[in-house]
């Protein structure tokens, strides 16, 4: 019995990690840039995933996942660092509460295509596609190894449904968080995942595997805090100089 449920449990636990990464990106981007474009992007990513999964089946493992990780990770890192730069300047000037009425409002710098905020669409699309592919790889790998592909598929699917439901239930509470904090947090998360995936795609061995994501996040939090403190002194110096 335990052997029978083994591939379900393994696929479920491994997929939960990937699903958390996926839902974190979607909820974070949706909270800042607006939900419509983010959800359309997430749904499009999921649709591509279903088509690729149905088309390739167990041949999914032949896809060059390292190249996908490198490309998607690099793009997320570039976006993440740009958001982090804006967040550091904003928090240094206005504090974490900030003003919600200006340049980093939802849609800022966002190219509009087909009535959608393209930034939100692409970030959600890529997050869902990459993480969804990783869940599919987990399911196919564990499922074929144990010859229990359906049990593994149910495990991976359950993990995704559980984490997505939790994300949907708690996303409303994000509306009460100041926008400056959200921009900072999403910048930190995109930079963390982007760094991890891009380096992983190049063949870097992260000490501790997936756990190094937490260390990376802690490193970026410390770095962002230091940059905000330095920038606050710089801004204070400019203001004092201008009023003198």
């Amino acid at each position, binding site marked *: 019995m335990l052997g029978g449920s083994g591939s379900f449990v393994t696929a479920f636990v491994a997929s939960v990690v990937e699903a958390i990464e996926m839902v974190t990106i979607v909820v974070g981007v949706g909270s800042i840039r607006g939900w419509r474009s983010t959800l359309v992007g997430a749904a499009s990513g999921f649709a591509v995933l279903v088509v690729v999964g149905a088309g390739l089946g167990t041949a999914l493992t032949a896809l060059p996942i390292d190249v996908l990780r*490198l490309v998607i990770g*690099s*793009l997320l*890192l*570039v976006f993440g*660092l*740009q958001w*982090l*730069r804006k967040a*550091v*300047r904003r928090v240094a000037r206005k504090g974490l509460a900030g003003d919600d009425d200006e340049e980093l409002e939802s849609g800022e*710098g966002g*190219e509009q295509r087909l009535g959608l905020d*393209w*930034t939100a669409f*692409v970030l959600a699309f890529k997050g869902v596609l990459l993480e969804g592919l990783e869940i599919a790889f987990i399911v196919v790998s564990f499922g074929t190894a144990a010859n229990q592909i359906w049990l593994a598929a149910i495990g991976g699917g359950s993990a995704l449904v559980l984490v997505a439901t939790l994300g949907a239930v708690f996303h409303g509470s994000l509306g009460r968080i100041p926008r400056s904090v959200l921009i900072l947090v999403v910048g930190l998360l995109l*930079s963390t995942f982007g*760094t991890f995936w*891009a*380096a992983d795609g*190049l*063949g*870097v*061995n*992260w*000490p501790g595997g997936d756990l*190094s994501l937490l260390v*990376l996040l802690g*490193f*970026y939090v410390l*770095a*962002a805090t230091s*940059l905000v403190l*330095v*920038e606050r002194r*710089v*801004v204070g110096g*400019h203001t004092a*100089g*201008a*009023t*003198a």
Partner: protein
Amino acid sequence: MRRIGDWLVAFGRFWWDFVVGDDWTIAAGVIAALAVTYGLVHGDARPAWWLLPLGSVTLVAVGVRRADRREQEAAPSAEERSRDSAESPGS
């Protein structure tokens, strides 16, 4: 033929604006950091996990300073502001 050319230029410009944004140094820096990381991993087989996080933080710090400098250059100096307010008819 010309329409295709215009479309390709617009397509390229869109992706440039979309990915590179208002500070090209971040995208260029990430590419450079990835290239060096690749060299370390596949050339010398040395641990290279530290390079991208350190490089990224450096890029943000440089980006913040560049944005500050641009803002300072665009803003009028205190002397210019006091001269403008002295010359304005309402003052």
